[in-house]
């Protein structure tokens, strides 16, 4: 492999890996957003403070799902991706803090920390490919 080919490969990875990360993060948000919207009762157990059988908890889950869906489309389509990633990072930070406060550190919490890290990384990348 020549130096030029290696450089071209590095450039390809550098150009497209943020796009791949952005789309994959968007798919994660879309999956959770869709399911929170269509079956909110199954997700109310995650709402802090409120009783999971309360109407307020269902409303909060629906609002959360709606926000996740909009952010997901923004990320996948590359619409203001850095802003969308920053908003996703805030949502994920809230999730990590809530899960840690309610039941301590676990593999689930740390997996969300990884997704949070991806969202934080995407807030710093200005140039994006495959955008609407």
């Amino acid at each position, binding site marked *: 492999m020549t130096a030029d080919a290696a450089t071209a490969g590095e450039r390809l990875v550098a150009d497209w890996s943020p796009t791949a990360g952005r789309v994959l993060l968007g798919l994660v948000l879309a999956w959770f957003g869709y399911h929170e919207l269509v079956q*909110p009762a199954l997700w109310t157990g995650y709402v802090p403070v409120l009783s999971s059988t309360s109407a307020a908890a269902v409303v909060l889950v629906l609002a959360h799902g709606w926000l996740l*869906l909009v952010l997901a489309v923004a990320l996948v389509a590359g619409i203001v991706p850095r802003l969308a990633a920053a908003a996703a990072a805030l949502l994920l930070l809230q999730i990590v803090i809530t*899960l840690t406060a309610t039941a301590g550190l676990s593999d689930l919490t740390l997996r969300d920390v990884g997704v949070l890290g991806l969202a934080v990384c995407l807030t710093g990348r200005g*140039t994006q490919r495959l955008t*609407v």
Partner: protein
Amino acid sequence: MASDRTRVSPRGLTLLAATAVVGLVLAIHGWSAHNSSRLPGPLAGSGPASTTPAAGRHSAAPSPPRASASPSAGPLLRSQPFAQYAFRVWPGVPGATAKSAMTGLSISVRKRGNGLLVTAGLAGQAARQPKFYPGGTDVYVVEATMGDDSGNTDYNLGDDGLVVTSAAGRILQ
């Protein structure tokens, strides 16, 4: 094509608006169906359950004894949307999936006369009052997704439930 986007294009704005509307429609559907999608049993409505001491978790006070009405036979379990998430825990030894579904829960079953005496609650918390199910033959734990379980902790009890059925497979309510 690479771009450094800081403003929303008309196409992007249209796509976001369409997504917002679709999300609103789904939310209305979710709101109208949220009561029917709620799982049965005494477990839904509780906070995170863990058998390990966790910060910020409070023990629930035991429920006062109460004279509950005798459970009546309801619909067939297999006709319910949550049937695919129901795992039998009694009689016999619960399988691996049923054990996973029971994460964070404490369920004990005793046969009494022609029915079952079932005690179900959160692991590590004060036991609830047992409930008698006349004609009950099978006990199922319902767990819509295992992804909220970690070790001995169930982070989301909103998707958990308990079902007792008759010999005909009807849910006793």
